[in-house]
């Protein structure tokens, strides 16, 4: 059985089924079931990769290599846990009258479609299809962001749509240029867009074209990554959409976009034989970390704040890949993994906290620990983890990034020190009174699904202390592949 195709088909089928029956009472469970099936397929796929190594499917149109295998598993996993969280969460939202059965239908269907698009983007070998899948993921999430139909959510979705649409159009132009360059070496046809083929001939491709192509691709996919100054859609979309969507946006979509950038970077580095791509990424990364840190220190809305935190972390990862080299790349990949685990866990906790307090304004959420210790500890530990407190995995990657930067780019380290300090001060100052102190929140009708929170935190903790050897092997191979 071809697990890869199965993994893509299940969510697609799920989207269809849920488009019809997604408004029913048990739909959240069905949604989770589909996600779980996807995850099982992904897990089987992974185990096969562990056993047999990289593999291809459908005439090399799809492939699994060390760079995407862990992302695939991660995506399927987080999509599944988020669907677990989303069940009770959306039920409560319906009880509050924010969701109707029709909207539930749309929500569940788009959720599956979004998963499908992301998995497609990750597994496709075709740079053109990658673009299509990214666009598809955008469209699906636009609908998800606007699902409450409030003024704010519409505005957020509109901005999201326009900004990402324009961005992704740039990426298409970049892809065309890439094709143009490949055309000269490989010849026209589908083969010229296959990443594996491009990778083999990367040193022969025309540097002038590829440097321009990379600019378009970077600006295009970078918009989706949320790099400053292309990030403006991100906080709005995170804050106004349903929390499960914020979780997958932050945890998965940003990763996938960054993954696309990485794929392009490999080709460009091969063609250019200089550090242009890396330098641009360093610039974007630093700018994102710095600006996001200062943005963090002026937030009032909890989801918005964690959205900026995602920008900060994406900046850090981009910075790491910009530096390049085995250690920084390794750290970047690790950071991608851990960030998506932890950040989605935070959003789960935040989601319930917001429901309990009835507001997203942080100053009005207090004392979570006294009303629900699990939500409180989840939020507290998650925030500390995302701020780079060991023994969570974020620290491990920050450790590697900073120590490498200290010798590779010493001038950047004071900026990073400043940004991390400001970010810590900002986030922690706001999270602490939310968790500690006297409470104003009330209990919920449905028991919150907090197992995912601690599952994610547990994994994040594990990655800080122990990384499974095959994961290490993937990271190392991928890091070598990314080069730098």
């Amino acid at each position, binding site marked *: 059985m071809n697990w890869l195709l199965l993994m893509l088909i299940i969510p697609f089928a799920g989207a269809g089924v849920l488009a019809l029956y997604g408004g029913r009472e048990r739909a959240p469970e069905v949604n989770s079931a589909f996600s779980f099936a996807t995850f099982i397929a992904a897990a089987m796929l992974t185990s096969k990769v562990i056993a047999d190594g990289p593999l291809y499917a459908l005439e090399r149109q799809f492939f699994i290599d060390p760079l995407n295998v862990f992302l695939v598993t991660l995506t399927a996993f987080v999509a599944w846990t988020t669907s677990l969280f989303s069940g009770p969460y959306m039920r409560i939202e319906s009880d509050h009258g924010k969701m109707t059965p029709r909207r539930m239908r749309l929500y569940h269907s788009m959720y599956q479609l979004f998963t499908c698009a992301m998995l497609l983007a990750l597994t496709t070998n075709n740079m053109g299809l990658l673009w299509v899948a990214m666009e598809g993921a955008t469209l699906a999430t636009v609908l998800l962001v606007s699902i409450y139909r409030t003024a704010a959510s519409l505005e957020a979705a509109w901005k999201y749509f326009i900004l990402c649409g324009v961005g992704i159009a740039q990426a298409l132009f970049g892809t065309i240029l890439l094709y143009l360059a490949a055309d000269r070496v490989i010849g026209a046809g589908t083969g010229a867009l296959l990443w594996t083929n491009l990778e083999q001939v990367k040193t022969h491709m025309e540097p002038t074209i590829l440097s321009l192509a990379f600019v378009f691709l970077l600006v295009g996919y970078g918009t989706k990554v949320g790099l400053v100054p292309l990030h403006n859609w991100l906080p709005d979309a995170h804050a106004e959409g349903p929390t499960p969507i914020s979780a997958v946006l932050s945890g998965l979509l940003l990763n996938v976009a960054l993954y696309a950038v990485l794929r392009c970077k490999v080709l460009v580095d091969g063609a250019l034989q200089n550090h242009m791509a890396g330098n641009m990424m360093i610039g974007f990364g630093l700018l994102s970390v710095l600006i996001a840190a200062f943005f963090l220190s002026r937030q009032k809305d909890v989801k918005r704040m964690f959205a900026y935190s995602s920008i900060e972390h994406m900046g850090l990862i981009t910075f790491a890949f910009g530096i390049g080299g085995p250690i920084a790349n390794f750290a970047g990949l690790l950071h991608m993994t851990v960030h998506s685990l932890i950040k989605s866990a935070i959003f789960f906790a935040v989601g319930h906290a917001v429901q309990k307090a009835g507001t997203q304004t942080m100053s009005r959420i207090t004392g979570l620990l006294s009303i629900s210790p699990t939500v409180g500890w989840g939020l507290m530990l998650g925030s500390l983890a995302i701020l780079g407190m060991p023994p969570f995995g974020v*620290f491990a990657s920050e450790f590697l990034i900073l120590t490498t930067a200290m010798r590779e780019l010493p001038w950047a380290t004071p900026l990073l020190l400043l940004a991390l300090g400001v970010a810590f001060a900002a986030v922690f100052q706001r999270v602490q009174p939310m968790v500690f102190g006297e409470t104003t929140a009330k209990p919920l009708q449905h028991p919150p699904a907090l197992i995912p929170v601690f599952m994610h935190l547990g994994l994040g903790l594990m990655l800080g202390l122990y990384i499974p050897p095959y994961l290490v092997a993937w990271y190392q191979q991928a890091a070598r592949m990314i080069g730098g």
Partner: protein
Amino acid sequence: MLVVLTVWLAIGTFGVLALHRFALVAKVFFPMGAAASLVLCVAAASAMGGAAEVAELPFGLPGLNFHLRLDSLSALFLMVLGGVTTGVSLFAAGYFRKGEGTPPGLLCLQYHLFLASMALVVLADDAYVFMVMWETMALSSFFLVTANHRIAEIRQAGYLYLLLAHVGAIAILLCFGVLQANSGDYTFNNMRAQHLSPFWASIAFLLALFGFGAKAGILPLHVWLPEAHPAAPSPVSALMSGVMLKTAVYGLLRVTFDLLSVQLWWWGVLLLSVGLLTALFGVVFSAVQVDMKRLLAYSSIENIGLIMVGMGLSLLFYAYHMSALAALALAAALYHVASHAAFKSLLFVCTGSVLHATGERNLGRLGGLIRYTPWVAWLSLIGALASAGLPPLGGFVSEWLLLQSFLFTPGLPNSFLNMLIPVVAAAIALIAALAGYTMVKFFGVIFLGRPREEKLAQAHDAGTLEKIGMLWLVAISILLGLMPSQILKAISPVIKQLSLFDLSPSIAANAWWLLAPISVARASYGPVIFLLGVAASCTLAYILVRLFYHGRLRRSAPWDCGYPLQNARMQDTAEGFGQPIRQIFEPFFRMERELPSPFDAQPRYRVLVEDPLWYWLYLPIARWVERISQWVGMLQKGRIAVYLLYSFLTLVALLLMAKQ
């Protein structure tokens, strides 16, 4: 060693399982933890001087397991840790009460995690495990500090603490980044092998100084200390002050003496001056405090300053290859590490008992407790005397050694330094004397005189476990005071390891009761004889007075100077006791005073002494951050056209860049 750590972690886990079963946690788990501490202390002592033991745990980053290494330096700090925590854990067993903040089981987890992480920091042999444990230590202690998180000040204190700890940790991390010299190998062994240029070595040193300084509380990174210590439960304050600050000392020692292959003389001068300023600042502020735990916190700052002075001096000598003197100064610093750990944790647990007995931290509402809580009072008297640096207790030995190392300065090759060092010695003398002042205030105002509040008469003495804990710490303090030559001989492997000079022959050359690090003719100190001398003359005087005269005694009301309306509130207050210091060191403080006028119907006097650094340094930084984030906020004004313009301009700019 690892067994002890595992036991601690296991206790912590059990604690979580028994989340709300208070009796089990307090009466079983904490004493078990104390027993483990004792084992740790003994194990460390046996490892002292032996060959370094290495272990690798299958955790950590790929290619970088957790490397642990137990050498003499680690063993020394583990001994301090084990010794102090034995007492503090016993005390804690009796201290924690039901129903305050964090559930007891969780507290138990955090507490033992804190202990284990401190031990692992000291044992770490690669940068990663060091950093992980360093931050775990900060984190677990943060949760302990904020155990009673319903109080806003405590949250604020915890916040400040964790923030500074984190920023410091990043600096340490960057320091390791320099040390690994781009080799990608984070083991300490590799770092030792790297030869850094003086420039990079200096960067590493400065980063280490900043990072460890933030934890140790050197000026101007001390601000968290006087906030966090009062906020924390007393056993936790005791551990933080007594042990955790020492891990920062350990880190600085490890980096400068062990990992760095180059030492520059100006590092020593820098450390010396920073230490001196810190000590002076700490003691002056400590003298004017009215909150007993804040007073102790500032006193900790002072002592850390003294330790830094010793280290700085040692570094200076070391850089000039005067290893004998370097060894002496280092001995002073290390001795102070141990003695401060003992007496400061003792004092903190004593304040804990006072707090439990009275519910009061403000010196202005205490007094006369020696009559109600004699155990606590007499035991803390020992602590206070040690803290004041009086012979024959532990604090004096280290001050004595420190002053000796100053006085034995033979001409350094730098005439400026030759002038500087005696002045520093004089300043140290001043600091020591001020510490005495502070401790008289501390002890006198809390325990002596008449109770300033009615309710103090109901104060109860410490419980059995608490008493045992305190007695243990007192025993350590006394031992450190009376057995300096034994102890120095025991820790001489550490000194040898760092300064490459062995003090033990010159110590061993004398009788066991005599401490003479160079020779008897130059300087010597025999605390046992000293104590016996005083005790003998006291006893003799007592016996002779009884023999020749009598022992008749009559009690009556004290003399009121003809003013019968005097009451307990008219005793000198803590503010009053600090008044001369406020006057003499006025430029140090930022004061708000409210003086009564002669015409006031109800005269009020109020004085608020604040840390000026807060206003000179921290608030401006906060303001700048706020201002920058205002500017940054302008970037995002909600207009989609502007956002598109950003993308457009970015695109154009990058295209221009790519074209070149």
